[in-house]
């Protein structure tokens, strides 16, 4: 008779920041350039070179800290994490060890029709490493240093997640937030958002966590779901056979759908962290911090819940609207007129407007929709003055001619007979 288990998950999300220049030198921070053309002596770790910290990196990390309800450390420092690898030119990564920029936050995620609060242990800044290129036509591996020094924030969660579904919701929420506050493009295909996953299992009802295993090389959120499910099943199988879980680091292979031992606890790196002597203390003034704090907009996870509760929208509508800053902004402009049901507005935005945006490849703003005019149009439909299909015709005409809906309706004779005397 097999027991029931609970999966305990903690995530370390790395997001590349969308700054102009790299974290410690003035090289351009861009993706996809020809190999080794976005580097300089500093990010290539040449002898005698020194780092200088990009102020925007700190600003973006602090912004994310406030977005995730963290305490910001007004005095923090950077540390060296020492290890040898060909993609790490200095043989140490400049990161933050014991005093990160942000600590003790949380984020609310939406799972199974309710909110769940997930603790955020810390957010720190660090530099990305370069890339190794493997190709069978080469005898060795090639090193491209372009990505060296690309600024990263690492967001570490508490082990508060209990299923792959929650993990996915958490990752989607983090992604939407970094994009909403415009600190990262979070493009998975470019590797600009990635995560390491800590997984352990415990018997249902237990309050003691099992031994955790760290999984690296998880490059997509759907991969994260597969990796978590695989690892939880692997651990449960070991426990069921009377075995014990070893604290180790495993590498996820998404193609094979399996993970492999990377290093055991005994082989764990000794990173020899110590304060980076080439950089001084990061000291942030209160006025600077409050300025950043005040710049945080309403975040997508909060907006989503508000759309459900205040406007009674279905989850699908709310999440589609929230996923786009311009659609949700337009939605709220329309709702504010107070004339039409929010659900009708949502239908129009997610239906015809989105379709026209797709067909024309235009952003919402570029369609130059007259919100007041659209409101009048929707009101006519609501009041059955015109049919829904006539409304579509009127709307297309509005976009073309910029005429008011009343004019178009009159001109085209679209009034429904039953109400003709009303106009």
């Amino acid at each position, binding site marked *: 008779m097999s027991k029931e288990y609970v999966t305990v998950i903690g995530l370390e999300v790395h997001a590349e920041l969308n700054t102009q220049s790299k974290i410690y030198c003035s090289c351009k921070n861009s993706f996809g350039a020809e190999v080794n053309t976005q580097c300089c*002596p500093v990010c*290539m*770790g*040449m*002898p*005698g*070179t*020194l*780092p*200088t*910290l990009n102020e925007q990196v700190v600003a973006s990390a602090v912004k994310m800290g406030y977005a995730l309800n963290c305490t910001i450390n007004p005095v923090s420092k950077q540390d*060296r994490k*020492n290890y*040898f690898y*060909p993609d790490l*030119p*200095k*043989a*140490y990564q400049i990161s933050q060890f014991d005093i990160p920029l942000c600590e003790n936050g949380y984020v609310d995620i939406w799972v199974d029709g309710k909110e769940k609060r997930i603790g955020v242990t810390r957010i720190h800044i660090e530099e990305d490493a370069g890339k190794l290129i493997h190709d069978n036509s080469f005898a060795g591996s090639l*090193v491209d240093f372009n990505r060296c020094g690309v600024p990263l924030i690492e967001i570490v969660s508490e082990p508060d997640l209990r299923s792959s579904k929650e993990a996915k919701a958490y990752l989607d929420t983090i992604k939407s937030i970094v994009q909403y506050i415009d600190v990262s493009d979070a493009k998975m295909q470019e590797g600009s958002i990635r995560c390491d996953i800590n997984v352990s299992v415990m018997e249902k009802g237990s309050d003691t966590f099992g031994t955790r295993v760290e999984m690296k090389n998880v490059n997509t959120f759907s991969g994260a779901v597969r990796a978590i499910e695989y690892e939880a099943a692997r651990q449960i199988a070991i426990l069921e056979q009377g075995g014990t879980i070893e604290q180790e680091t495993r590498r996820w292979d998404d193609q094979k759908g399996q993970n492999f031992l990377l290093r055991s606890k005994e082989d764990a790196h*000794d990173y*020899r*962290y*110590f304060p980076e*002597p*080439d*950089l*001084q203390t990061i000291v942030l003034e209160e006025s600077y911090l409050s300025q950043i704090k005040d710049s945080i907009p309403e975040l997508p996870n909060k907006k989503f819940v508000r759309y459900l509760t205040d406007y009674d929208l279905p989850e699908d509508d709310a999440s589609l609207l929230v996923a786009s800053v311009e659609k949700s902004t337009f939605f709220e402009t329309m709702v504010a007129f107070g004339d039409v049901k929010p659900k009708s507005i949502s239908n129009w935005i997610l239906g015809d407007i989105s379709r026209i945006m797709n067909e024309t490849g235009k952003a919402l703003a570029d369609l130059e929709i007259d919100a007041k005019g659209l409101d009048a149009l929707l009101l006519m439909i609501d009041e059955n003055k015109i049919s829904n299909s006539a409304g579509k015709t009127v709307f297309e005409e509005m976009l073309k001619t910029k005429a008011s809906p009343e004019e178009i309706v009159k001109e085209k004779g679209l009034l429904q007979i039953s109400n003709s005397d009303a106009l």
Partner: protein
Amino acid sequence: MELYQLTAWELFEKMAAKECSAEEITQSVLRRIDQKEGDVQAYLTLNKEASLAQARAVDQKRASNEALSPLAGIPIGIKDNICTKGVKTTCASKILSEFVPPYNATVMDKLDATDCVYLGKLNMDEFAMGSSTENSFFQKTHNPHNIKYVPGGSSGGSAAAVSAGEAVLALGSDTGGSIRQPSAYCGTVGLKPTYGTVSRYGLVAFASSLDQIGPIGRSVKDVALLYSAICGKDEKDTTSIRREYPDFAKGIVPSVKGMTIGLSDEYFGEGVSDEVKTAVMKAVDALKEQGANVVSVSLPSTDQTLAAYYIIASAEASSNLARFDGVKYGYRTKEYTTLEEMYEKTRSEGFGDEVKRRIMLGTYVLSSGYYDAYYKKAKFTQKMIQDAFQTAFGCCDLILTPTAPDTAFQIGENIHDQVKMYMNDILTVTVNIAGLPALSVPCGFDKKGLPIGLQMIGPKFSEGVLFNAAACYEELLGGFSAFSALK
């Protein structure tokens, strides 16, 4: 009197008065190099043609009445751990034996603006680790006063070249005494500036929180001149300090009247030779006669300071030198199959023993389980030492100590006893640990005819005060050039 025997300031005046040309000066120094270099072996790279071309360009500028810096046309040597664009920078290590940086150290950019003449790159202990310049991969530099003796280190090439007249001025670097101790051994004047006053950008790092580039010359004014040229805030080095930097050479007032000199028993202890003690006390007496007051100050034990120094310096070094892995630049072993093999063989073949010891010590004190007992405790000790100096400077303007416990030792004498070698730094490391400025100036000879060094330590940013006191003493002795090996 040959031109190579003159100080930079004397040469500047001669050039200004059109009594000699920059080309003649460089030629004189190059002839001196031809004559002495076989014995002294101070240079790793010599740029004879390029230096003459630079000198001729200065003469042309002067002929067309361009405003020139006092350093224009002055032949200068550069320690080989300072990056020079397009010129080999080896750190006297096999691992960088063919390294040609595509960038300049900030101090080189600053010197470019003075139109000084670059003679070449000077020998040193590998990666500035050592006190005798015997740890160079390429050659041993000899003390020009007696070639059986070491010139000190790690800036041994810089001090020997200046002492021998093979350069008028030189840049060295000082992490634990590497400018001052060789200056003492060779009879030159050397300044370890306040930490943060000279940019470290382009100085190949040994210990980032302690390293500082500084000048070596044959007079106080020359040293002040070169210091003025290289100091200042640099955007590329966040540890460099933004403040007003005066013209130090112009500002010198050779006087100690009303100054209070502090003396600490701790710096005249057991290991310090009687001859050195006597010479230093004689200097103190001379300054007292010039109107200085002398008080006794209490400073932390030199043993504790030395321990903290070796822990912090080695910890940083182990990390700073990790980048030499055969991947991006420098030496790579010839035979390997795996990455790990390539790393280990490259580093084992590329580094000398002393560098390996420091890397191992640094790795040890930072490693898991030892960090708190060594590295962290050393950093707290550093804070305690800094506070102690601050207290001491509450009741004196400068502190006088011997620069080194003894005069130069013979080549090979200490090479097998590391701890004895490290004791050479016992009077100088404090200054780096506390981030203070200090000058070493000559104060006599021992009975073997080797120079003795006097160290003047001041509070942060007190270089001007040190120059005044040193210049006063220099006048009393009739010039420090007499302690160089110019004959």
